[in-house]
């Protein structure tokens, strides 16, 4: 069994525990009532989208320096996970916005910069898919990731820099302890699941590229053969 499956299993168990806590045990939010429980899936998703995007940025620099298929595959994995988590957080946010703001969408700075992030990272995946030459694909993906990443700190700081509908940062001091617990559990759950998905995508990217696949019956590369 690939060793990252343990992270996936841990993430799944934490997500079940954090979701049960957030949906059934944590108190309703003071003004939003039960709708406020969307917090426990939306905020962990957003944190990890930004975190894994940052990992993609670091890996992109490493990919340009190292020029190896493994770095490119790792970049592909983190890009795909960032795109998925960003789409998820946009959908969750829209669903949460309707009962609280009265609309599903508004061209608000936080929402707009997040949408740009989603389109950028999904666009990078489309760019990758359109390039056949592995060297060009790796270079363009890495350079594109560095350019796309410029938006990520802007997403994070948008609620400070501009007047926005989106609520400001919350801290453990400003929310009930019973709300902090499921938030933290689900944050680790989404982190573990995000890493698991990124590694699975990296393995797939390497396997499909056929890099380091020898002519023996099974690959000698543990990342491809599943013996890591």
């Amino acid at each position: 069994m690939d060793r990252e499956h343990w992270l996936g299993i841990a993430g799944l168990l934490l997500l079940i525990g954090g979701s049960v806590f957030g949906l059934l045990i944590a108190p309703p939010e003071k003004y939003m009532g039960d709708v406020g429980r969307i917090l426990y899936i939306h905020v962990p998703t957003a944190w990890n989208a930004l975190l894994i995007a940052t990992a993609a940025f670091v890996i992109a620099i490493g990919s340009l320096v190292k020029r190896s298929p493994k770095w490119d595959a790792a970049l592909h994995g983190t890009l795909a996970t960032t795109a998925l988590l960003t789409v998820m957080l946009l959908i969750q946010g829209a669903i949460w916005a309707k009962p609280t703001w009265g609309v599903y969408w508004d061209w608000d700075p936080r929402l707009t910069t997040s949408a740009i992030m989603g389109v950028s990272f999904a666009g990078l995946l489309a760019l990758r898919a359109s390039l056949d030459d592995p060297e060009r694909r790796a270079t363009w993906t890495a350079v594109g990731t560095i350019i796309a990443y410029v938006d990520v700190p802007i997403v994070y700081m948008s609620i400070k820099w501009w007047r926005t509908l989106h609520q400001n940062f919350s801290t453990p001091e400003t929310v009930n302890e019973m709300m902090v617990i499921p938030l933290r559990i689900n944050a680790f759950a989404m982190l573990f699941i995000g890493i698991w998905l990124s590694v699975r995508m990296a393995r797939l990217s390497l396997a499909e590229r056929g890099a380091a696949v020898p002519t023996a019956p099974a690959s000698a590369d543990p990342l491809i053969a599943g013996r890591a």
Partner: protein
Amino acid sequence: MEGVIVGGWGYVAAAWGISLGLLLGWAVVLNVRLAAARAAAQDEGATDAG
């Protein structure tokens, strides 16, 4: 209490359902594609060895 949103479990269910559906769907797609790619690599290796 005035100003408090009452109900809204449908929105909560939608947010959770769509999120888990996307995660699960993507996980299944990834693992099926990876299994197929590994099987293809093994077949190719067996053919070359033969």
